[in-house]
């Protein structure tokens, strides 16, 4: 009996008939692949870096229990609460219970594939908690009662007109197809959600065992608001998200967004170390992490544990020629594209998802772009082997294969088959080409002509060729070895040391100020090189007559206040939300800055408002030159040496999104204008 499911064929047919869908996907994926190529070119030792990433991840997966234990211990020591969930339903139940226990009613959600996997929104809604997606793409998906079709770019299948219609219908907005205006409509609507929400749910990119820290990487700023505004922050992660060391983040942040969107690092990378401290002025009172198995343990224990290395960058989707034709919804699962062809059957059921491992030409581009070296085509082939073993391959195909293979295994049967094919092909052929085959063979000629087997195969020509004289043997070259095939480095099971020669992009003795300023400009910061004497007037020039809040502890505060006297309007952050949401400008210091990426690093503490670098439309950050470290490797190596703040955020550029047609819009939920003043 054929066990082939027909849902996949139906989905494919629908997608292939939708020219607008395919054009939209081709357009965006081609753009992303080009950006990726440019970003990869910035990394001298890209192959070595991804080998390193693969080895770190594989080592962690091979020793998962030890690292999970360590993470849990340290996470709890920092004041967080840990919940383990065996299934998606358990995870939802746990999160609903947290909401009930705390009387929470409005949940802001950051983009998280794991919450898509568990269908958390439905569970929250059923329990009377309103869940609002706050990532622009996911927000549109939710308004349309749709599903994301890409793990990084959820509405890759939509265009500005479909977004506009959703906003008119669901929000009562005026019709506009301007992506900038559409983004502002979403911003205004979601501001209100961020003011009122009492619960925030995010995913997790990396969970650091050494320190018990969560790392969440986002671009729009909605993730930061989700982790800052509500009373309770709940993070949902799969068990495979744990990594051993804080310094490993140097490897992964360099690879994650380069691979997915072509950014050197995401705009925001938040390091969460427990809930807000007693003297922190803002931030969630409770921090929960829900650690989901959901079928991952079985993958870890089986032969395909490399699949768990995936860091959800989305590069394989952008690269895949099949994804480009059929889009994400055709895969019938939360995880589409090449990695989805592995995750969907492995997390669920190989029989239901029987088509996914088969519907691949095994072109291998996914392996080439994977930042953690997952050998996707190899796993696909082995899933096909499992299907043959489990008899989930239709008998007709098995019979055809076994017959053909028998013929190919014997030289004389092979010759007979060759001759027979030549003779029989004379019937349907016109000349040397066949345009239409009868019966079930017809699918071979449905779309293209087939060549006839040649009148004389090569083996019949060979005796003639052989008879013509061989040339005199010329010089015999040395035996040349093959270049190494795809790296087997991940097979080494020890936790690899972090080789600076592979990771570092900026040397410790480089001109850090120049590099920092150039790269900060390149990623969209506006940089002013100033001096203690000029600082007040430089800031006054930027602020003008706007409303402004300045971090009370900034040492330059008296100078700035003097320079702004009589023009700007000072708001008191102690006044709470009213001031924070009313101010135009937030002026903060930084904890550090990174020359490599032009990143500024802010961290929470007494009198340091998380909202100040996040909620006002303009952020002015003051960087002292001695705060600039060369490389992300230096930052992530140094951070654990002193006590971590509850919230440390790497900020690399203004808030941005590319969700609508891949067009870059700045100023989504975080500040659209960020000035960095270097002293």
């Amino acid at each position: 009996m054929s066990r082939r499911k027909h849902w996949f064929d139906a989905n494919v047919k629908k997608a292939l008939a939708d020219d607008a869908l395919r054009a939209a996907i081709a357009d965006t994926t081609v753009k992303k692949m080009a950006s990726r190529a440019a970003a990869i070119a910035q990394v001298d030792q890209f192959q070595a870096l991804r080998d390193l990433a693969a080895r770190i991840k594989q080592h962690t997966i091979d020793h998962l229990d030890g690292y999970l234990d360590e993470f849990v211990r340290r996470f709890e020591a920092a004041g967080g609460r840990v919940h383990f969930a065996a299934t998606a339903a358990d995870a939802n139940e746990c999160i609903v219970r947290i909401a009930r226990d705390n009387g929470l009613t409005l949940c802001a959600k950051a983009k998280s594939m794991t919450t898509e996997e568990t269908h958390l929104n439905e569970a929250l809604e059923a329990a009377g908690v309103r869940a609002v997606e706050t990532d622009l793409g996911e927000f549109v998906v939710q308004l349309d009662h749709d599903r994301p079709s890409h793990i990084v770019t959820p509405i890759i299948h939509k265009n500005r007109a479909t977004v506009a219609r959703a906003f008119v219908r669901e929000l009562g907005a005026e019709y506009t197809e301007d992506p900038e205006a559409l983004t502002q409509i979403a911003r205004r609507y979601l501001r209100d959600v961020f003011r009122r929400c009492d619960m925030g749910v995010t995913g997790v990119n990396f969970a650091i065992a050494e320190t018990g820290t969560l790392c969440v990487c986002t671009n729009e700023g909605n993730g930061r608001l989700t982790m800052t505004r509500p009373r309770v922050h709940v993070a949902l992660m799969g068990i495979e998200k744990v990594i051993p060391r804080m310094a490993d983040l140097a490897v992964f942040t360099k690879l994650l967004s380069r691979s997915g969107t072509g950014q050197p690092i995401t705009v925001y990378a938040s390091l969460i170390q427990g809930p807000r401290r007693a003297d922190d002025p803002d931030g969630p009172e409770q921090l929960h992490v829900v650690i989901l198995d959901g079928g991952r343990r079985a993958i870890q224990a089986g032969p395909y544990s490399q699949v768990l290395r995936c860091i959800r960058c989305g590069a394989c989707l952008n690269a895949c020629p099949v994804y480009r034709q059929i889009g994400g919804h055709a895969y019938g699962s939360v995880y589409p594209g090449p990695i989805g062809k592995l995750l969907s059957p492995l997390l669920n059921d190989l029989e239901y998802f029987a088509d996914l491992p088969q519907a691949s030409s095994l072109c291998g581009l996914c392996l080439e772009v994977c930042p953690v070296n997952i050998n996707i085509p190899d796993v696909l082939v082995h899933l096909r082997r499992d299907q043959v073993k489990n008899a989930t391959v239709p008998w007709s195909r098995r019979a055809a294969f076994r017959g053909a293979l028998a013929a190919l295994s014997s030289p004389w049967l092979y010759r007979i088959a060759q001759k027979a094919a030549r003779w029989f092909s004379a019937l349907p052929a016109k000349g040397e080409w066949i345009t239409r085959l009868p019966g079930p063979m017809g699918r071979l000629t449905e779309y293209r002509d087939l060549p006839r087997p040649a009148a004389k195969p090569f083996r019949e020509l060979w005796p003639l060729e052989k008879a013509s004289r061989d040339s005199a043997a010329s010089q015999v070259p040395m035996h040349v070895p093959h270049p190494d095939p795809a790296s087997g480095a991940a097979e080494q099971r020890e936790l690899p040391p972090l080789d600076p020669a592979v990771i570092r992009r900026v040397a410790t003795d480089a001109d850090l100020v120049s590099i920092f300023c150039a790269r900060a400009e390149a990623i969209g910061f506006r940089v002013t090189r100033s001096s203690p004497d000029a600082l007040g007037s430089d800031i006054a020039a930027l602020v003008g007559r706007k409303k402004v809040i300045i971090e009370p502890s900034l040492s330059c505060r008296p100078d700035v206040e003097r320079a702004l006297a009589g023009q700007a309007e000072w708001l008191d952050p102690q006044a709470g939300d009213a001031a924070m949401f009313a101010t135009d400008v937030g002026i903060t210091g930084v904890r550090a800055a990174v020359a490599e990426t032009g990143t500024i690093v802010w961290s929470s503490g007494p009198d340091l408002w998380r909202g100040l670098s996040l909620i006002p439309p303009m952020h002015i950050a003051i960087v002292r030159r001695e705060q600039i470290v060369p490389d992300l490797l230096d930052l992530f190596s140094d951070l654990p040496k002193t006590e971590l703040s509850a919230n440390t955020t790497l900020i690399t550029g203004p808030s941005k999104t590319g969700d609508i047609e891949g067009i870059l819009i700045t100023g989504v939920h975080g500040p659209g204008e960020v000035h960095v003043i270097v002293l």
Partner: protein
Amino acid sequence: MDVALFVTCLTDTFAPRVGVAVVRLLRHYGCTIHFPPDQTCCGQPAYNNGFHEEAAEMGRRLIDVFDGFEYVVTPSGSCASMVIHHLPDLLAGDRAYGERARQLAARTWEFSMFLTDVLRVDVSSIAADPARAVTFHYSCHNRGLQSTEQASALVRGLKEVDYRPLDHLDQCCGFGGAFSALYPNISNAMVCDKVNAIARTGASVVVSNEAGCTMTMQGTARRHGLNVAFKHVAEVLAEALGLMGDWP
């Protein structure tokens, strides 16, 4: 230098001229060619479709057939990849054949890599026909073998060649063996993109060194009335050197 030609089923059956071109070209560069007559298939179709016991059996046959040759050269990247990458894994636990599979893998070469890396052929003095614009499609297995540069250099590097690069070169042509028969509609969408990219180059010759890609692209180009010639890199070089005079 003794070279055994592993011609592959598709080239043997559908593109014998490619086999002839390979033989003449390798002879031109001083090789002595052998053609073990019992050769059939490397087992790649069985392997790719999950029939791994059958693939292992065919692999053992192949190892016996090509036993003792210093070099084994094949005009197909995918068959080379089967022998070089997959057979040693497949037969790793096989006492009699495991080590022999590794040895065969070390001695087996994809044709364009053999020309550039072993024979160190310099094509810059070989004149192409400047009146016929050429484009080049590399097979995905060339990428797997890390030989895309070698393969395209053999075309790009010809003297006076009018070389037209193909858009989205990294995208698969849509063949993928059984894939194109099981999912003909997806395969067709892919190959249509490829054929459109070919048409945009304005080239009159498409060079591809994989019989499967060639059959797929050529069959689609014919169906849509695009009149371009498809050639293996061996044919292009053998023609340019005047070795194919009796083969129009």
